Structure formats: structure tokens, C-alpha cells
């Protein structure tokens, strides 16, 4: 493992990249200023590295919803490369959100929703992890062809304190572009691919 601030070997991601694409969106809601360590602090992350590696590898963390395959690979590759603070590998562009369930699952539901809406968590009665969860809920979470009646769209469009994700969750609201993709996906039948 590199000492803090030491030059990185070539083709390594930096801590800033890992923070922006993995730790910030997926860990900061609990490990922002509490939860045992601050995921925005490189020294804190180094101290907890074995635990992070173990718990992420075995999908124990993040609680309720593991990292997407892409995020998990990024983080574990970075750790296996010595977890450098600085790297010279170009930051990979974030994947583009597409109107397909797999894309919406990985880029919206996992980072924004599933930490609560999964078994054992506060939103356990409204699970959002599978396409079946969305299509077959009594609450009409996703009604193919009808985004305006779909609870998923109604909830993320709200701007008051009832919006999803809730303002007090520490998770930011969806962007209008993200909502547009979800609306487009539902309008076109809410297909898996």
C-alpha cells in the first residue's frame, strides 16, 4: 500500500475518483460524519481498508444494497493496486443512464433507493430491487405505459418533504434527466432490456 501522498504508479485511479464514483454516492449517507469513519477522508479509509475490502467483497456493505458490479470492481481494483491517494489513470466517464431496467437498477435504484427499500430496512414493505418488485406491487410503483400514475415517478417528482429519496436521508434528489429516462422507460412498456 502506498504511503499517503506518495506518487502512484501508472494507470491507477485516484482516491478522488473512487470517492466521487463509489464512496460518495454509496457510503456517505451513513459514513459521512458518523458510522465509525468518514469516507471522504483518505486517512480514515486507509485505516479501515481491510474491513472495507472484506465487507464490500462479501456484499455486507453498503447495508441493504451491494455496490453495482461496476462500482465494486472499481473499488476492489483500486484497493488491490495499493489504494493510492493520487493516480494518473483518467477518470472513467460515468455510465449513461438508459431506459432499460438493468440500467435504471444500477444507476438509480441501487444508489438512491435500495438502502431503505430492501428487507430489514425502513422501506422494507416497498422493495425496489427487482423488476417484479416494481411491476407487481399493490401500490402501482410502475404501471407500464402510464408514468403519470406510477408511484415511482410521482414520488421522485415531488419537491416537498415527501419526495423520494427523502430530504433527511442524505441522498440527493434525482435530476430531471434521470426522471426523464425513467418516464421514457415506463412509457415504452417498462421492459427489462
Amino acid at each position, binding site marked *: 500500500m502506498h504511503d499517503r501522498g506518495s506518487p502512484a504508479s501508472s494507470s491507477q485511479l485516484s482516491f478522488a475518483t473512487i470517492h466521487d464514483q463509489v464512496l460518495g454516492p454509496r457510503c456517505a449517507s451513513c459514513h459521512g460524519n458518523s458510522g465509525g469513519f468518514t469516507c471522504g477522508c483518505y486517512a480514515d479509509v486507509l485505516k479501515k481498508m481491510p474491513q472495507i475490502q472484506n465487507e464490500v467483497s462479501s456484499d455486507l456493505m453498503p447495508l441493504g444494497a451491494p455496490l453495482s458490479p461496476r462500482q465494486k470492481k472499481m473499488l476492489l481494483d483500486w484497493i488491490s493496486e495499493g489504494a493510492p491517494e493520487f493516480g494518473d489513470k483518467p477518470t472513467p466517464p460515468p455510465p449513461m443512464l438508459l431506459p432499460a431496467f438493468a440500467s435504471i437498477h444500477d444507476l438509480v435504484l441501487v444508489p438512491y433507493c435500495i438502502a431503505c427499500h430492501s428487507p430489514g430496512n425502513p422501506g422494507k414493505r416497498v422493495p425496489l430491487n427487482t423488476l417484479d418488485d416494481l411491476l407487481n406491487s399493490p401500490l402501482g410503483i410502475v404501471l407500464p405505459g402510464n408514468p403519470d400514475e406510477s*408511484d415511482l415517478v410521482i414520488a421522485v417528482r415531488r419537491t*416537498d418533504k*415527501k419526495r423520494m429519496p427523502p430530504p433527511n436521508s442524505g441522498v440527493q434528489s434525482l435530476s430531471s434527466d434521470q426522471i426523464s429516462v425513467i418516464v421514457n422507460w415506463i412509457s415504452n412498456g417498462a421492459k427489462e432490456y
Partner: protein
Amino acid sequence: MKFIGLAAIAMCLGMAPASYAMNNSTAAHYAIHAMEKLVGQGKLEEAFQTAFQNMTVQADANTPTFTVVLRQIPGVDKTARAVELTMNILGQMTSYTLVDGAIANNPPIWPDADAHELGEDAMHYLLDNVETHPELVPFDKDMAGLTLSQSSMVKDGMVMAVAEITSSSSKDTLRIVEDTSGVVQSAAIVNP
């Protein structure tokens, strides 16, 4: 056609999928969510959440459906704005009717969770605990209503909420005290 017929018979016999098996409390719980959705769509005014006071639930075994009425705090003329929801045995709202009434008069100001969330959290307590506390079964299976009010108890300077759940098969009342965030502080079955 044959499938539709079988499905209809299955529904009439109450053979809902296990995960959606309906009784009064689950229907009431889904109705709370349905009301929130209607507010989110702008079909009902926000006061159904902020000035929510009580709900009643009634099963119609013949249809089979559940009728859930959610009411706001009454107005100065003692009438209350309400919404009547019909829920099917899958927990889906199939219709809603607005019942006119006066604007809620002086509803309590809840600083954290609103009145509707406090009612929902009380329902969660019931649904979460009924499997391990058989004494809650009458309130789950035969829930008749829920009324939310301000408790006489205070936590951190905040007046707590109390939700009272009644049952058509018991004279007792399930009394659930919550803090202003909706975290349950105590629950007790109270004899009349």
C-alpha cells in the same frame, strides 16, 4: 376466458397471493399509501397528510373489497373532509371518492413527521409485531379504525402523538405512543 373465470373464483375465495394476503390492517396500510399517492398527484389536497385525524376500515366479504375512509380534523362546523377508498384483495385502490367538509380547524402542528406519517408508523408497529404478539391479532385481522391525537406526554419538549387502533372483535384499544419523528415509545392494550 377459463383462466379469468378461475382467477375470479380464486379472488372470491380469498385466495390472494400469500404476499398480498389482505386483512383489515393491511388494507388500511395500503390505503394510507394510496392517499399519499393521490396527494402527490395533486388529486387530493396536502391537508389529507398534514391534518389527518382518523381512518376507518370495513371489509365486504361478498365483493370482496375493503372500504377505507380517511378523515381530516373537523372544521368549525364539525364536518370533516374525507376520502373514501375502495381497496381490492390485492391491496390496490380501485376507486376513491372525496367527501366534502369544512377546512380542518386548528390542526396540531407536528414538527417532524406529519400526521399521516404518524398514522402510518403506528400501522407499521402493528404489522411488524403481530406475528410475535398474538394479543395484537384482533387489531390486525379485525381492525376497525385508527385515531391520531396529541398525547399528554412530552419528550425533548415536544408533545408526543398517540394512535389508538380499534377492533371490531375486541372492546379493547391498542394505544401506541410515538415521538414526533414517528418512533414508537410505548404500546399497550387498554381495556375500556
